[in-house]
């Protein structure tokens, strides 16, 4: 479903991705791990179409169609959703108004139908109806931000959900609900590309069903099963880097 081919990406003339290949089939669960600065977030943002990241070589295909140069909203309409590592504040825009508009745009829902669905799903992620009248992310804690990202994913039910460190800066309780919701989405058919530093968020998942990629210096240097996560947790990255000569 997603095919990233020989992707080279630069920001302000500095090359960050140096030839990434990645293939994700429908409903699969992929994990990307790697030290800071290895290019994980850049890969996520480039797939979602952030204008700051210039693709100098290679291409991105989604559902067989090239989306390398499509605007971010066009990618969203095709089924790609990125849950941000640090979603920005949107001053003056109420969550409910924003989510209603998203559902109208992406799902063709009517405003009333959208409203009811949002309130219902929000409850599962501990947002009360009055919370939805707050401005998007303004004054939110780390956990609230991540839960709001997850709420959007649950409402949209994308074909591919990219999660950029959904477990960073999150309290223990939020982490457990986030991890459960990711699993639920995956079971309902959404393919997942999850970027993380820790294995904790993957605890409940069937390790054999995971595909784990290790990134270093703008490249994927190793791909394996869920066992790779435990090994990284135990030994750190250096052994793997040595093993592959990276």
């Amino acid at each position, binding site marked *: 479903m997603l095919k990233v081919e020989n992707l080279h990406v630069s920001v302000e003339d500095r090359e960050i991705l140096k030839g990434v290949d990645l293939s994700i089939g429908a409903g699969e669960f992929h994990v990307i791990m790697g030290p800071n600065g290895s290019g994980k977030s850049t890969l996520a943002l480039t797939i979602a179409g952030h204008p700051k990241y210039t693709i100098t070589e290679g291409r991105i295909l989604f559902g067989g169609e090239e989306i390398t140069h499509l605007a971010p909203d066009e990618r969203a309409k095709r089924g790609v959703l990125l849950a941000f590592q640090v979603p920005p504040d949107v001053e003056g825009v109420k969550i409910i*108004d924003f989510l209603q508009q998203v559902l109208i745009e992406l799902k063709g829902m009517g405003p009333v139908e959208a409203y009811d669905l949002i309130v219902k799903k929000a409850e599962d992620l501990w947002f009360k109806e009055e919370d939805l009248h707050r401005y998007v992310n303004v004054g939110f804690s780390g956990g609230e931000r991540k839960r709001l990202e997850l709420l959007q994913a649950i409402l949209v039910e994308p074909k591919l959900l990219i999660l950029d460190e959904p477990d960073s800066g999150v309290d223990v309780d939020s982490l457990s609900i986030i991890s459960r919701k990711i699993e639920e989405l995956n079971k309902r058919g959404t393919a997942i590309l999850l970027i993380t530093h820790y294995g904790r968020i993957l605890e409940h998942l069937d390790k054999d069903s995971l595909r784990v990629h290790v990134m270093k210096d703008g490249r994927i240097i190793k791909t394996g099963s869920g066992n790779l996560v435990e090994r990284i947790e135990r030994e750190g990255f250096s052994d793997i880097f040595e093993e592959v000569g990276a």
Partner: protein
Amino acid sequence: MTETITISDAKAIIKNQIEELAKRNKEPNWMTRIRYKALEAFEKAPHNDPIISEEELLHFIAKPEIEGLPENIESLDDLPPEMKALLDRLGISEVEQKYIAGLAVQTDTGVIYNEFLKEWAKKGLIVLPTEEAVIRYPDLVKEHFLRLFHVDESKLTAYHTAVWNGGIFLYVKEGLKVPFPLHLFFLIQESALAQAPHIIIIAEKNSEFHLIEGCTAPILVKHSLHLDMTEAYFSEGSKGQLTVLQNWPEYVHTRPMTRAKIGNGARFINTTVGLGTGKSNVANPKYWVEEDGYVELNGILLGQKDWFVDLGGEMYLQGKGAAGINASKAVIMDNSTVITRGIIKAKAPKTKGHISCDALLLSDKATMETYPGLVSRVDDAELSHEAAIGKIREEELFYLMSRGLDEEKATQLIVKGFLEPMLKDIPMEFLVEIRKIIELAVSGGM
């Protein structure tokens, strides 16, 4: 401008207008005398408008109405087609459309409001066209007419005073609390000589009201210069809100002159929403605040096309514990220029003042300038200011677009959100229209 209009030409024209107004209004002599005094002052009074030259002003006086508009608008079908199309797109009701076209002044809405106001008149609420108040409440008007201005301050004050016509007289009796906003429709005069409405607001002790003037949709006006004057008096403990909604055609210069006295413990919230593509708007409202009094000036501006806006605001905190806030938010597009220059002067102990100014620039050719002024004559005043001028943040736009909103819709949402916190006191029916106007402006459809 082909012919030259001299100052004596202008004076002769003003003199004729005074005579016509005195006759038409059957006004008492004392009012006509005020007009003549203003005419005398006109010649020597200084003229210091940043946009309209003295020569231009004389031309406006000689020829106040612009050409090319339909002579007689008898039904909505007589409106210029672009305007009719815009009103339809905004989804504005027929009653309001008629008002906008100047048709409803004496018809539909006048009647509705008269019925309603009769009930409240018994309780001590007086709402009248100012001309009528001059005749029916001469003592009240005399006591408050032109007490906060000097006729010779400027040529514009003198000209306004000489030819003022239209406007509202609002009187709220001691202790009377009007529980709903009064939206008054009869500001625009059908066959005015000059567009110079005079508004007098008197809030007696512990009274409360919210007055909404104007309209969110563009108004078809025939005059290229709009000179309104507002004098507001708040007695001890009264609470008043004045919300001014403006959406001017692009040929109109507006020079609103607003001043208010805020008594002990009184509160005045003055909100101006400028949505239009007028030519220029220059205003420097002044407020004198007594002990524990409070004043808030909120400016919301949507600068489009070549609109030039210079929004001042002077607050004199002259009683102990007086407080003032001057807050503005501007979205500036196209070639528009917005300048804000609020001044707060603390003259008494324990006073507080704050100026804030935020601007969102949506075009490379848009300009924003801000000059906050804080003056303290005491050692325990708390005065502060903050300003932020910037464009839409890439991260915010990308975030919204990554949720499937196209660039236009994402921008609309950000712009509406930017202005939203300032619109807290605006009733819902206007908010809906204001939001639609913002959307149309952002997508270049105004």
